[in-house]
């Protein structure tokens, strides 16, 4: 570690740091300041007040927040279960097919989530791909499951698959094959190998994946709008309403700050415990 490298590192980092200060830290600071402005104002000139926060705690907004947190938590748990076998397969089973399978799961990342959710709408809608087929083939006339709470959860699970799958894959690939074989050789059953060796060693990947999924799902909005038919009002929707129809920016800012606090606390908690260098493959 020489002085030259220290400066080279700081020098290389400076454009990004500068950009993130202007493009990320400053907007967050702005939104925090704005949350203390009088309701329905549009500038920074007002007398600071806690009124917006009081409004939030007196209203039923907490219901939206609870829905978002609850659904995000459920999404994380479901995704961990359905993605683990695929992630395991990518690392240990598929061999040279892994690249192709990875590619197949990457592509949806690049298609806007509302387009993909719209596809599910066309799939589940009355006379759509599923119900239409059932009707014409078997004469079954079923009710659509659209516009229910379940379908919103379904949509969230669907949209965030890659965000759980890839960190999990990284995590599992951190488990050396020899350690598993050693555990097996020492008499562990398949389940014990998983619980005692694979799971703890791949935990950083699972943590990053869960964190990413949770954070994105807490801010999710499209699933409820496209598939949920307003059965659930997520917190992000409340925020958007405050900024658009209600034209109450300070209230929206205060809601955003609450969400940021929850997310920020979680992120810092998890990131403190993860060694990024190891996860991303520094030798």
């Amino acid at each position, binding site marked *: 570690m020489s002085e030259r490298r220290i400066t080279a590192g700081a020098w290389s980092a400076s454009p990004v740091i500068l950009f993130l200060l202007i493009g990320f830290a400053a907007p967050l600071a702005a939104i925090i300041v704005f949350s203390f402005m009088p309701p329905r104002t549009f500038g*920074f000139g007002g007398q600071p007040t806690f009124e917006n926060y009081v409004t939030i705690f007196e209203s039923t907004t907490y219901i939206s927040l609870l829905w978002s947190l609850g659904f995000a938590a459920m999404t994380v748990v479901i995704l961990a279960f359905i993605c683990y076998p695929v992630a395991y397969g990518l690392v240990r089973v598929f061999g040279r097919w892994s690249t192709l399978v990875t590619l197949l799961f990457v592509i949806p990342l690049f298609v806007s989530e509302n387009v993909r959710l719209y596809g599910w709408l066309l799939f589940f809608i009355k006379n759509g791909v599923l119900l239409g087929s059932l009707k014409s083939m078997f004469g079954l006339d079923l009710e659509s499951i659209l516009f229910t709470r379940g379908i919103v959860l379904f949509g969230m699970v669907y949209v965030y698959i890659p965000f759980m799958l890839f960190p999990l894959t990284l995590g599992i690939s951190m488990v050396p094959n020899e350690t598993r074989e050693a555990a097996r050789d020492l008499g562990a059953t398949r389940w014990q190998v998983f619980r005692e060796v694979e799971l703890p060693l791949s935990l950083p990947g699972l943590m990053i994946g869960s964190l990413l999924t949770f954070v994105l799902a807490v801010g999710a909005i499209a699933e409820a709008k496209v598939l949920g038919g307003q059965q659930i009002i997520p917190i992000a929707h409340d925020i958007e309403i405050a900024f658009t129809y209600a034209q109450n920016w300070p209230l929206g800012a205060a809601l*955003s700050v609450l969400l940021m606090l929850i997310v920020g606390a979680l992120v810092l908690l998890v990131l403190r415990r993860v060694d990024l260098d190891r996860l991303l493959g520094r030798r």
Partner: protein
Amino acid sequence: MKTRAVRIRHALIVVWTIAMVIFVYLPSLSITLASLTSSRYFIFPINKWGLDWWRKTLDSIQIHQILETSLVIALVVTAISIVLAFFGALAFARYDWKGRSWFQKLILLPIFFPQSVLGLALLLWFNAIGLQLSWQTAVFAHLVWIVPVVTLVISIQVYSFDPAIEEAAYDLGASRLQVLREITIPVLMPGIFSGGLFAFLLSWGNFPLSLFTTGADTTVPEYLYAKMVAGYTPGVPVLGTISTVGAIVILIGGYLVMLALNRRRRAGAG
């Protein structure tokens, strides 16, 4: 030798993965089917197949404009994010410096952040500093989360890069600039390339950030969303299919280019 139990487990994993792939592509399939009907409403099974809506959509001047806006934003985002992220990745993964672990966390924050809230925060910020919203502000907004993503993508390549080769080049007489041009950039090229691909595609498909920051300009995902909530029109499946197929073509094309680059490098005849 694989035991019977292992074979069964692997078979189950393969079956499960295939099911997941189908699950992931089912909506895209539905959209594509819906785009191929001639009727005004989508009723399945389709009785009147046709490309009428494709023709109408492709002829629309408004759609051209929207595609152009999306394309311009994605290209500018790609160019800027590659430059910023290249140096960011060196700082992230290559150099040992005092602030590195702090910097690594900073880079992750915008990724680990609800995008809709980020979009609104930027809207508020642009408003506060008096910027007129347009496709340029959308570029800025996209960069806030795409630069960190691209930094991570390039970092993965940087990790597999032996820092001694830069020192060796320097020791052999190269100046800092020559080291960058002759060694660092060519060696990191695969990472830079996939980073660029990510930047383009993520910008192309982004909705939550564009929604609040494009002002009067409209991107493809925004347009689709507006049409979706306004009621059914077969133009939506057509444009949805275009953007899906476009992403697939670009990604696979990029993947093939990478394969070719790698092969040439490995063969060493060039």
